[in-house]
């Protein structure tokens, strides 16, 4: 009997006791702050293999574990990371029908030596039918200029022939080429994938094509296709040579060499690996490693985003070479080895990833002992974790910016984010095919109001697909003003007149459409509601529908199955927007979801990919931006201002200064963000030893 009473009252009492004890411990215990940085994110990395992962959480962790050949400096310009320096040159090749003709062309070029400097031409030599020009500047324009100056009929055109065959039958082409009479005229053979070959043929491709067709007709089981592609006047093959940092070691002690760079490249294009970054490297024709510290890459044609692509982190050959993808998943992807300032330590799924200091880092050991990347489910949790110092940084939402700026405990960093929001008009729908209508809609929506009230002033109106902090941004594009009257007039002009219920009508059709957005973001839903409201005022009826993110993307947006959608893009510092705006990219699951088609823009998009000269890039990008903005395939809304918050004096920077001194300064904003110097962050409770040595320049925060 007694035991019954004991149980009845005792168990709850015991539980309460536990609670009280735990609470007292949480509030009273004095604990020291560890020498560790805590970052928070709402997304967990999928894996930590840089050539396989494509999410932002993974790249945050990878940025401290790995290095690439190149990186961005604090002004968002390209600088060396694992590469000490690099140089670019190009080999342009002309082809003549006979060796004698080739020599003649070479002689003519020699006679034009006075123009060589202007052409960045360094040397000319012949090799059989080929005339090779060694240029110090990559690009097509100078080569074209030289070609046209020569004005000779003594040069053969080149033709591309594409052969598609089952991957199991690759050798069939090799067999053919060993014996075919037309084979000697093949000047380049490029393996596009495991089953498609691109042959570059000098002169008339017809004999080769017919021979190939006959050959494969006799083997129908191979299911081969042979077709003729484009015609070229010459070959232009740029080349980048990287000189690597000596004395770099992987986290397991092995030295870093050019072999690792070559291996990273081979893995990137290997289909069994399945890297999502493969398309950046498809134009590479070969890589060479003349010695341990030199790495050379040759491209099939000029491709200016090439340099940017080598910021990809490098993976260790000595660990991963020869191992299948399943082995990688088991032993590397979740416990990676890199060359970076921090080493991987521990990954607790759905809790955190921890990395610890790498004392042997080639630029010097970092001051922090460890960094933890916490995973939290939503924005609110992040904010609460920040307020209890469970994470050290927090990106404030726009409405909270005012509050945190006034809070004396926090330091606030404000910078333009690399993204923009928009309403996409599906140009396949007849409703949106008139440019006047789209421009009217742009002026009917109160974008400045949106910025003022949704972003609390933290943003600027977007004027196209580039954001203001990029060096090729065109500042001369004027944003459309908020002018509902002008909008109404434009619509009247386009034939849309107000009907009896206030909604505009044309040819019996009402101006009504469905605007879809995802349930994941309250801001996007707010935008949808505002657009609905604004457009109702000028006689356009908008029905808003919200869907779960995955459904939204896969069922509607990717398939071009919508009227209008509210979305945003994150914009890397890259001027190559081919996949988003080129007319060929509007098939299902591609990125030109609105089916934008402007032949002039198409041309510019291809052109800019082959342009290496800075002023030209700026010019072409400017044209692309202003044309797209005027065309209004999207209603470009705004570029938000990002705000990062940190507890005052939570961190300072101690970085190397001139003449062996050390600069001790507070954390401040740079063009590349406020965390650019994070390798050199230190906690004031654990100051680095060097600060005591005396050769220190100490700076304080600039008072705002």
């Amino acid at each position, binding site marked *: 009997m007694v035991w019954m009473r004991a149980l009845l009252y005792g168990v709850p009492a015991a539980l309460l006791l536990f609670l009280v004890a735990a609470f007292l411990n949480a509030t009273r215990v004095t604990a020291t702050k560890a020498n560790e940085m805590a970052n928070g994110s709402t997304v967990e990395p999928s894996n930590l293999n840089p050539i396989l992962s494509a999410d932002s959480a993974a790249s945050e962790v990878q940025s401290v574990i790995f290095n690439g050949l190149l990186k961005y400096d604090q002004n968002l310009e390209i600088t060396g990371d694992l590469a000490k320096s690099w140089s670019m040159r190009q080999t342009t090749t002309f082809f003549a029908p006979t060796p004698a003709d080739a020599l003649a062309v070479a002689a003519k070029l020699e006679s034009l030596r006075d123009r060589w400097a202007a052409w960045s031409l360094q040397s000319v030599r012949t090799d059989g039918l080929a005339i090779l020009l060694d240029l110090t500047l990559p690009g097509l324009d100078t080569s074209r200029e030289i070609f046209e100056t020569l004005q000779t009929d003594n040069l053969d055109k080149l033709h591309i022939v594409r052969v598609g065959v089952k991957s199991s039958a690759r050798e069939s082409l090799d067999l053919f080429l060993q014996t075919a009479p037309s084979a000697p005229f093949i000047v380049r053979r490029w393996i596009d994938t495991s089953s498609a070959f691109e042959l570059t043929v000098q002169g008339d491709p017809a004999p080769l094509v017919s021979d190939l067709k006959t050959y494969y007709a006799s083997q129908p089981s191979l299911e081969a296709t042979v077709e003729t592609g484009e015609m070229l006047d010459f070959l232009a093959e740029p080349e980048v040579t990287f000189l690597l940092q000596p004395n770099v070691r992987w986290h397991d002690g092995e030295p870093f060499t050019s072999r690792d760079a070559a291996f990273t490249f081979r893995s990137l294009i290997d289909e069994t690996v399945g890297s999502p970054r493969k398309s950046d490297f498809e134009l590479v024709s070969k890589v060479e490693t003349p010695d341990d510290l030199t790495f050379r890459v040759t491209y099939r044609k000029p491709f200016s985003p090439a340099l940017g692509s080598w910021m990809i982190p490098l993976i260790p050959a000595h660990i991963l070479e020869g191992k299948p993808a399943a082995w990688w998943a088991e032993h590397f992807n979740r416990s990676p080895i890199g060359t970076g300032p921090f080493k991987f330590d521990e990954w607790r799924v759905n809790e955190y990833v921890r990395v610890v200091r790498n004392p042997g880092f080639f630029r010097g050991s970092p001051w922090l002992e460890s960094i933890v990347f916490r995973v939290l489910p939503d924005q*609110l949790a992040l904010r609460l974790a920040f307020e209890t110092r469970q994470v050290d940084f927090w990106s404030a*939402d726009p*409405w909270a910016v005012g509050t945190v700026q006034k809070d004396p405990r926090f330091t606030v960093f404000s910078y333009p984010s690399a993204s923009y929001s928009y309403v996409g008009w599906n140009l396949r729908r007849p409703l949106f095919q008139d440019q006047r209508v789209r421009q009217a809609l742009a002026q009917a929506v109160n974008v400045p109001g949106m910025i003022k009230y*949704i972003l609390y002033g933290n943003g600027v109106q977007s004027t196209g697909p580039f954001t203001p902090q990029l060096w090729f941004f065109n500042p001369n594009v004027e944003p459309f003003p908020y002018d509902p009257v002008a909008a109404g007039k434009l619509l009247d002009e386009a034939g849309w007149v107000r009907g009896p219920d206030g909604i505009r009508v044309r040819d019996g059709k009402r101006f009504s459409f469905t605007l879809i957005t995802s349930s994941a973001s*309250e801001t996007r839903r707010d935008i949808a*509601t505002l657009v609905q409201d604004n457009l109702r005022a000028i006689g356009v009826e908008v029905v808003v*529908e919200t869907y*779960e993110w995955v459904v939204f993307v896969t069922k509607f947006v990717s398939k071009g199955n919508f009227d209008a959608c509210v979305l945003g893009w994150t914009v890397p510092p890259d001027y190559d927007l081919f996949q988003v705006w080129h007319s060929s990219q509007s098939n299902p699951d591609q990125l030109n979801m609105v089916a934008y088609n402007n032949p002039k823009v198409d041309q510019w998009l291809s052109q800019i990919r082959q342009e290496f000269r800075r002023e030209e890039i700026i010019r072409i990008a400017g044209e692309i931006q202003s044309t797209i903005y005027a065309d209004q395939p999207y209603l470009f809304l705004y570029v938000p201002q990002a705000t990062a918050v940190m507890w005052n004096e939570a961190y300072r920077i101690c970085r190397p200064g001139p003449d062996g001194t050390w600069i001790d300064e507070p954390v401040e904003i740079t063009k590349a963000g406020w965390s650019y110097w994070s390798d050199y962050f230190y906690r004031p409770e654990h100051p680095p030893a060097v600060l005591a040595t005396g050769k220190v320049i100490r700076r304080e925060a600039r008072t705002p």
Partner: protein
Amino acid sequence: MNANPLIEAEAVSPEAAFATPGQRVWRRFVRNRLNVAASGVVVALAVISLVFGIASMAKIPFPSDPNATSLESKLRPPSAAHWMGTDQLGRDVFSRVLHGSYISLTVGFVAVGVALGIGTVVGAISGYCGKWVDQVLMRAVDALMCFPTFFLILTAVALLGPSLWNIVIVIGLVSWTGTARLVRAEFLTLREMEYVRAARALGQRAPAIVFRHILPNAAAPIFVTAVLGIPGAILTEAGLSFLGLGVQPPQATWGSIISDAKTYILDAWWLIAFPGAAILIATLAFFLVGDGLRQSISTQTERK
């Protein structure tokens, strides 16, 4: 001082002893002041939701247009002009809560109605027929209870579209199992009652027996389950809206008002507090009424 309700109940007036069962239940019900208060709230809610439901459908802006956005007055705390403050688009929260009541309560009623319909039919067949029919149906009920409701609803909403009626029907479809079990239990018991046995012996067909004898006696507990199921449906709808799967803007339910506001929770407490209080009050009222009914009815059947 004896707290035995049985003894207490015997001290009853002679006229009352001859009252019908229905009247007895009623008397027992109104004796408890809590029940009366709760019923009052329920009636008030029903009236409010009806009135504002009509206003909403006829697009009458009473007391003020719940969909009128006004960016200048966003996120204002409660004041004389806006009794419950404004939300992140400047809309009056008081108006939205009132207009949203109609949808929140409709979801409760219709979802329970659907669940009731299906559950009663399944439970009746199972309880009356017995044997293998009962086994099969009960295993099916077991099976349904194993499904994680969340992604059933997610899939359904994704496939059918996020309309109010789809959500309601889906909630009904996943929650009929409790009713089925209860109805089955009632039928199993009632089937063995003398008067049913007598009816069978006399040759009455099954449908007649079910509708004339069994169902009326089982009606009371079924009704109580229904009333007790309404708050569950309301809470489920609130939960769904909270996760972003509810009705579309600009329509509002209490759950979607809270869901839209969860990011502002630290800065605008009124956006969560008022709709939350509404949900709480409505749910509580239905629970209390349902429980009161259950107590009144069970005491009554005890005395049979």
